[in-house]
């Protein structure tokens, strides 16, 4: 399976049994959220209720157009905000009840940018990911260095180890940020629109890397995106959001229904099914 993933051919869907045996890392049950601009008025935006699960070694895409509530859902998953109703559990523990350090040990949120104020080396930056483990005032142990080194290797950024953070290119920096998240040894890896500033080559490379991390390193990866084809190509499960509602959850082939997608994305679409069962979305007809 890993060999086919490396040479870029379509990833074969794993057998149903191997996926179902994997432990459930994330369990979202009827989670909902709402916020308003001011405290008193009616909510400007409501999300949910949403229900879905993510297992170990799965890559889940949270898919939807702009303003569909993807970022809000991500905040709920990361524990930044508490759900108004329902539960969000990671490894069986409710996210809202976890203290900050434990939460950081379980969930790693990968941001797009990092503003580093004073000169910092890449390995120092990645070592920060070990912060949730050990005492508050801590000096890194050999194990920490080992894990940070592994994280860098997992993203293919080993050669960048001694470089200065402010001298990295955009793609290199993103890999380093990802490495820091991996150093946290999280159960759950959350990424918010990571392909936004990348060109097509960069997008593919990133998704492939995430796929590898899920398959080989047993991470559970959740990617918030609006890229239909990337989601279809690389994810095991898709959570489709539209205007705050969780419309459908399932494998890409199940979720990608032409009428549904046209309604959600408000564009004329055509769905093709390629070999391997994964759908591909193209624009239909003359524009």
């Amino acid at each position, binding site marked *: 399976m890993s060999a086919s993933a490396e040479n870029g051919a379509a990833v074969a869907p794993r057998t149903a049994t191997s996926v179902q045996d994997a432990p459930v890392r994330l369990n979202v049950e009827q989670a909902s959220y709402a916020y308003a601009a001011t405290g008193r008025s009616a909510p400007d935006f409501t999300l949910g209720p949403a229900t879905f699960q993510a297992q170990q070694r799965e890559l889940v895409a949270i898919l939807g157009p702009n303003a569909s509530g993807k970022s809000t859902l991500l905040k709920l998953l*990361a524990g930044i905000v508490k759900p108004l109703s329902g539960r969000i559990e990671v490894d069986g523990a409710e996210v809202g009840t976890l203290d*900050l*350090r*434990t*939460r*950081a*040990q379980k*969930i*790693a*949120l990968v*941001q797009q940018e*990092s*503003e*580093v*104020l*004073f*000169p*910092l080396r890449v*390995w*120092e*930056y990645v*070592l*920060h*990911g070990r*912060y*949730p483990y050990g005492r*508050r*005032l*801590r*000096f*890194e142990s050999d194990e*920490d*260095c080992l894990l*940070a*080194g592994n994280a860098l290797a997992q993203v293919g950024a080993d050669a960048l*180890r001694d470089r200065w953070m402010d001298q990295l290119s955009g793609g290199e920096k993103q890999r380093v940020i990802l490495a820091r998240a991996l150093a*946290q040894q999280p159960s759950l890896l959350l990424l918010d629109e990571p392909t936004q500033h990348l060109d097509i080559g960069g997008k593919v490379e990133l998704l492939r890397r995430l796929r590898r991390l899920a398959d080989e390193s047993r991470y559970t990866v959740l990617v918030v995106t609006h890229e239909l084809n990337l989601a279809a190509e690389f994810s095991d499960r898709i959570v489709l959001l539209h205007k705050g509602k969780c419309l459908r959850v399932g494998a890409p082939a199940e979720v990608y229904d032409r009428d549904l997608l046209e309604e959600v994305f408000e564009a004329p679409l055509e769905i093709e099914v390629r070999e391997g069962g994964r759908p591909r979305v193209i624009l239909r007809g003359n524009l």
Partner: protein
Amino acid sequence: MRPLTPKRVFWICSALLGVLFVMVVISLRMGAYPISVRDIVMTLFNGALGRRDRIPSDFWLVVFGLRLPRIALGILVGAALATSGAGFQALLRNPLADPYVLGVASGAALGAMLSLMFAPQVPGAIQAAAFVGAAATTGVVYFLGRRGGQLDSATLLLAGIISASFLSAAIMFLGTTLSGRDQRGMAFWIMGDLSSPPSLNLHWLFLVLIVAVGSIYTTSSDLNLILTGEQEARHLGVNVSRVKLVVYIAASLLTGLAVSVAGAIGYVGLIVPHVIRMIFGTDYRLLIPASAIGGAIAIVFADTLARTVVAPTELPVGAMTALAGAPVFIYLMRRNVR
């Protein structure tokens, strides 16, 4: 990959302490009263052993009554200001942050001035009032610096600048009501004066210094993370609000301490942490203790110059730090704009 180890922190701090020791010895040697190094060492030695009768009372007076207290005060003030500067820079994520920019020092100075006006003879009043001034300014600026319930760096800086201007104006206004003698005393003190030992025992003040510096040190791992982004630090498990509060209170305490005993000595909180960063890196687990010792070295050096450059007249030490600090500051600024 060579992460910072406690051993490295220890060695660098020991080396800096060595430099401080040398600076102290040089400073002990300098002064209008002619006393040789040998006599100084003998006086120190006998003093440590309690054998006071073995030393001419003049030597005793000069070493223990004049020079050493002044040096000790310089160490206290330098360490306090440098550490508070490093703290504020992390807190505000701004390399130009310093107790003066935040108006905390002006608040302390105003407190001291009010105590001079209303209770000049009460021992310890000036220190207590400066503390209160610093703490009150801290509270006000902290309150003004919030946006949406969170401490916002840019708003905080603005609040600090406004407070500093307001307090300086208040000081000037009140200054006109003082008698000539007190105006003179205030004007000199405002520029930084290490020659009047505080009426509170130095031991207590050093204790406060150690407690405050220690508090900031416990957050140094957190500060390292906060410097790469507050949100990210939060996601890594740092209790950002709590860390900010601890650092802000401790740094303000240190500023109040320094201003209350020696007036307004500028640039130390700004320059020393930057120089330490340039030499030893930005890791706060080393930066905090190194800045403290570095600040002590800087002030002892500046004060020695202030005492000897136009001897026998003594310049205010704040003048020396400003004279040296401004060019260093410009150099740092230009380096940053690479």
